[in-house]
């Protein structure tokens, strides 16, 4: 039928147009970065780094591999963990520009090899060693290398984290622990200091003094973060719609791969950690998804019936016209 042929031509041109301005254009505009399936063995780091660093990095990640093969003793690790808790505690304070995160679910959300690497040398592990030409001691967690020294100690404390700090974790907890010390999420009511507390205005003046005090504390924290990282990390409320999923995955896995020289550290998330962080970003940045999936089929069904009835109407109207 002629109308169908015309429709086919219109449809083909429309699809070609779509292909050109969407998938094709985006494939040309963004450099393609391969992910590494959340395996942290230094492959990408060695490929990306300056020539004079290659040997150090190779040796470092080879050591990590050896430690990973050791059998850790969780009970012995608990004693070592006390040193971690000296910084990573309830009500921890900003040190060197950033507040140490809670480690309550560290064993659940971080990769084992990454944790080993982090304790051995936090700057190399997080791939921001370019910021510390004078050695890792200048890193806010740098002093750990003088506290936990033997490979067995490292294996023990990691075994402890994986045994005792690995409970069920909510998306919000995963975000707060892995990203929250640097990134606010205002749609999730989170600042770098955590959940925004509920406060009340003074009835006589209409001013909320507690809120102002809290805002001041946040401003101070942000200033020190900006000083530490060279810029204030962006609020991640709606980042899920501002970046492609592929970008976010590869960026979070290894920030240097997408933004060479960036101050954002690798966070070493494992599969579960990544899923939970994504779930939270989706919750704040794309909250309508469940409702969309529920309403969509109903609306489409309505218009299918509408169209079917319109077709019958048209048929009866055009009867005898041809």
């Amino acid at each position, binding site marked *: 039928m*002629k*109308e169908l042929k*015309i*429709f086919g031509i*219109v449809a083909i*041109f*429309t699809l*070609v*147009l*779509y292909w*050109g*301005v*969407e998938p*094709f*254009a985006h494939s*040309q*505009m963004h450099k393609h970065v391969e992910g590494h399936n959340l395996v942290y063995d230094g492959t990408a780091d060695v490929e990306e780094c300056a020539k004079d660093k290659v040997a150090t990095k190779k040796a470092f990640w080879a050591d990590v591999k050896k430690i990973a093969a050791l059998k850790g003793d969780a009970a012995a690790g608990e004693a070592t963990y006390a040193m971690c808790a000296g910084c990573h505690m309830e009500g921890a304070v900003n040190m060197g520009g950033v507040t140490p995160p809670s480690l309550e679910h560290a064993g659940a959300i971080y990769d084992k090899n990454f944790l080993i690497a982090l304790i051995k040398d936090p700057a190399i592990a997080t791939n921001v060693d370019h910021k510390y030409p004078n050695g890792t001691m200048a890193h806010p967690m740098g002093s750990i290398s003088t506290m936990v020294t033997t490979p067995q100690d490292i294996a023990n404390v990691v075994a402890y984290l994986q045994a005792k700090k690995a409970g069920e974790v909510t998306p919000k907890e995963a975000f707060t622990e892995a990203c929250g010390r640097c990134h606010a999420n*205002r*749609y999730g009511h989170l600042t770098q200091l955590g959940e925004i507390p509920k406060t009340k205005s003074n009835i006589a003046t209409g001013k909320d003094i507690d809120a102002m005090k809290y805002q001041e504390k946040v401003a101070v924290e942000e200033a020190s973060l900006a000083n530490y990282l060279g810029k204030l990390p*962006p609020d991640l*409320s*709606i*980042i899920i*719609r*501002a*970046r*492609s999923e592929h970008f976010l995955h590869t960026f979070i896995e290894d920030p240097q791969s997408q933004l060479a020289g960036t101050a954002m550290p690798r966070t070493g998330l494992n599969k579960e950690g990544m899923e939970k962080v994504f779930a939270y970003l989706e919750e704040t*940045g794309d*909250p*309508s998804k469940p*409702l*969309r999936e529920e*309403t*969509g089929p109903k*609306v*489409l069904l309505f*218009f*299918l019936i*509408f*169209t*079917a009835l*319109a*077709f019958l*109407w*048209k048929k*009866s*109207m*055009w009867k*005898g*016209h*041809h």
Partner: protein
Amino acid sequence: MAHFDENAKPFSHKWMNERLAVDTLKRVLSTEYWIPKNINFLWAMGMVLAATFGILLISGIFLLMYYQPNTQLAFDSVNYTIMSEVGYGWLWRHIHGVGASVVFLIIYIHMFTGIYYGSYKKGRELIWLSGMLLFVLFSAEAFSGYMLPWGQMSYWAGMVITNLFSGGGLHADFLVEWIRGDYVPGQAFLNRFFMLHVLLVPLAIIGVIVLHFGTLRLPHVNNQDGEEFDFEEAAEQYKAGNVKESKVIPFNPVFLSKDVFVMGIYFIFFFYLVFYHFEFAMDPVNFDPANGLKTPTHIYPEWYFLWSYEILRPFSTNVGLIAFGIAQVIFFTLPFMDRSPNVAPASRRGLFKYWFWALLVDMIVLTFMGKLPPQGIWSTVGLVAALTFMALWVALPIITKLEKKL
């Protein structure tokens, strides 16, 4: 003075007729507004456009209830308040966003239908001109709306497009500042584009839609063969019951029933996009809040402006601006550039057939290139396509002059 029956009950048929001539109106505007029978679904695109405009208007009114035209608040009022706090706010926003993009797809289909069948000639010039006016107004509406969320693309597209008004080598910076109300896009800029988007431009659009419909009434719409026939005679035949032989059908209900069916199919497509594929209509870059200190890596307009953007880009500033200016208005001249007496589908019009498909393909190529970074092979292809566009318009009067009368 007219005669008024004192016994007619208020609002009864007779009472209304004496005051508003409802029967006549209905006859003239719908039941005896004759449409040729020999048309295809492309002739429903006008009503599809009217429906889409209606959807945009309604969804826009809902968005307007929560939108804040303030550089500090705009971004969150859209992305937080409307998207997560207001019940079904996300639905209205996605409808509005998808509608704004799809309306251009349908406008382009509608325009190219007109070009293909020669519906801009011989008495139909004003239909075409008022249509082009609608195109320009829709462009202004889309651009001003794009400023409102105050994201990175709003800000930078606003910056780039208003910069064009400096006229390149003319350095008319005062004009740019006058348009912005500031040295850079800021509060004054947002406020005035808000006013344009929600009041002045929609008002003008409604007016011009009425004009566009008015221009259709006397020449009637064209048909698949460009056939000219006596509408009066065909109408008489229809009214006499020779429905089958008559070349016309009444707009209401016969043509309308087909319009509504086509609209139904369109709505399925439309709402499929709204629920499952809305991202294409909402650029990711615009989900980063406006930041005057950070230029995005790639700045490009929405897809429907890409072809004219690409006519601007490959040239030096001044030449580019002139080429861009010409591209913006050249379609207005179509009824006068086409020198052929034939009103017929392009397929029967000799060289014009090739001209039509060349123009279509060229504009698609321009659209692709407009989004790609202007580097290497892409900028060469863009340049060639832009020159081809110009050449096609120069060739048009010549090839149509050569056309044989059918």
